């Protein structure tokens, strides 16, 4: 589904990604871990199409096609979704209007008619239930005055509405208490199928108790320096990153 080859990216002349190779297939969950500043968030932004980053080399293909030249909205229409580490507050745009526009623009891109209001509302209600979101939520301004937990829940709510093929969860666990974490993880798990894939970016093993990865990658200095299965995450939790850094630098 997603294939990244030797990806190098920089911002304002600073090299952030120095050669990423990553293949994600349908039905898989990949966890990307790594110390602060290793390039985790940059990788997710670059996949989603953030224009501030300069791609210096390498390729990103999605379903066999290069997406390097696509705008963020086109990538979204192809089924890529990024759950933001810090969702943006947008006063004056309600959650419901935002979702309606988002969903209908995606439908338009697929040549579909806008979803009838009744169906849309029904769908919103179902997904809200899944994420234990309260009723009044829809009419609130997008992320404005939301608690950390509400913001992250809102991200997964959007993901549930858009039903992406590839979801990238960028530190979705940060700022969540244990109950919110459980709800969010539960939501993600219910949305999982053999046709979609998830990339979970996280600092901590904690989230991976709930969203169990098939593969774990360690990012360091803009490169994946070690890959393994979920046991690798446990090992990191126990031993920290130092041994991997040493191993990587020793190479």
């Amino acid at each position, binding site marked *: 589904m997603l294939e990244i080859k030797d990806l190098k990216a920089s911002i304002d002349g600073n090299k952030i990604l120095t050669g990423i190779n990553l293949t994600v297939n349908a039905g898989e969950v990949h966890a990307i871990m790594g110390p602060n500043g290793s390039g985790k968030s940059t990788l997710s932004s670059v996949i*989603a*199409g*953030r*224009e*501030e980053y300069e791609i210096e080399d390498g390729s990103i293909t999605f379903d066999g096609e290069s997406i390097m030249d696509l*705008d*963020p*909205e086109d*990538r*979204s*229409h192809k089924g890529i*979704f*990024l759950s*933001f580490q810090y*969702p*943006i507050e*947008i*006063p*004056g*745009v*309600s959650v419901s*209007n*935002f979702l*309606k*526009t*988002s*969903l209908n*623009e*995606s439908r338009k*891109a697929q040549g579909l008619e806008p979803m009838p209001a009744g169906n849309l509302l029904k769908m919103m209600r179902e997904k809200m239930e899944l994420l234990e979101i309260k009723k009044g939520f829809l*009419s609130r*301004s997008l992320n404005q005055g939301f608690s950390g937990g509400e913001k992250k829940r809102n991200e997964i709510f*959007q993901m549930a509405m*858009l039903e992406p093929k590839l979801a990238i969860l960028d530190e979705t666990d940060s700022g969540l208490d244990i109950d919110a974490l459980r709800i969010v993880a539960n939501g993600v798990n219910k949305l999982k199928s053999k046709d979609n894939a998830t990339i979970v970016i996280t600092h901590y093993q904690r989230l991976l108790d709930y969203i169990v990865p098939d593969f774990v990658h360690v990012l360091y200095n803009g490169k994946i320096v070690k890959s393994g299965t979920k046991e690798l995450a446990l090992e990191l939790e126990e031993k920290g990153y130092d041994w991997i850094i040493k191993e990587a630098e020793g190479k």
Partner: protein
Amino acid sequence: MNLKDKLIQAYKDGATQGLSFESERSKHIQRFDELGFPTIKDEEWKYTNLLPVLKSDYQLSEDESEVTALSIKEYILTDTDTHLMVFVNGEYSEELSSIDDKQATICTLSEAQLKAPEILKHYWGSCISKTPDTLVSLNTALSKEGAFIHVPKNKVAEKPIQIIYITNGVSSDLFLQSRNLIVVEENAQVQITERHQNFDGKEVFTNALTEIHAADYSVVDFYKIQNDNRSCSLIDNTWVKQGKNCNCTVDTFSFGGKFIRNNLSFLLEGEHSESNMRGITLIGKNQLVDHHTMVDHAVPNCLSNEMYKGIFDDNAKGIFNGKVMVRPNAQKTNAFQSNNNLLLTDSASIDTKPQLEIYADDVACSHGCTIGQLDDEALFYLRSRGIPFKEAQAMLMYAFANDVLSNVKIPELKEKLNRIIAEKLGVDISLEI
């Protein structure tokens, strides 16, 4: 003959003969003769050059022309039960208007001479300061017709009143002086909308003046929809005088026209009153919108709220000048002013200037101006959810302007404004919350 001479000649030739207030008119035409049109040398007109507007060869009146009821539909509220006053080329159109004035007297100024001569005499011109802008003098001297609204004590005008000034089928460019007098008595309420609309693409220059007298315990909401043809220029002078415990709002929505200057002045004469001034300006190529506001806190314990939002595209030019005067005895005044602007291009500009003159010591006054661009992070966020760039921009701009729109109390008007904004932003998405 230049425009100034033409105007003075018209007065001498008896343009206002037989109309009331002869001595007032003569005083003001003299004043206009002495001082002429304002220029950029006047402090109040420093950033707004009126000269290009004055260059056209305007005629000063025009015969009535046909505008069918159907063709004005687009410019008025149609689903709301309202009183409708339509003026065509400066004359009242009985045919296009519809008024049933059970709660209030709603008529033209010339009819008011018969229907309510005492009120007219008492209030006409009384709101205006002694040394107004010379354009106010010009209007006072030469205005002939306009709307007269009188809401008696304890009455609520249940239906909003729409005033629309149309120009159509004129033989050459036209310079008009329109004038409204609104008197809202004690404990009375009214909602009014006003619009100037040209139909034929001629250059029309309107120097409008509205006086609003709001007595104790009254509530007045006045909405100005400025979305005229690009050939048109408007100077809109509005004078509001408030008694005690009364609440007045003037909201100005500026989208169209090539040149708009708003002079909005509030005088708070009674305690515990509230003045609201809000505006959205959304303009583009070769357009200029200037908001000059003044709120005069002459007594203690009043509140004034000012919120203007501007979005400027292409080479649009905006001017905001907000003066707040707090007189020495006006203790416990609350005065808030904000002017926030988005510049979408490098060639768009805004000159913004808050002017606070505070002579009382126990007051809460604040002001803030911002000038910025759309937030890249927010744009990326919306785009990452599949919302295309243009629509994402539109959503953010709408969100930016929304605090002003959310205060509009007539639902159909709010919808209409939403549609105009979506159209101006070139998107086909529903923007309402």
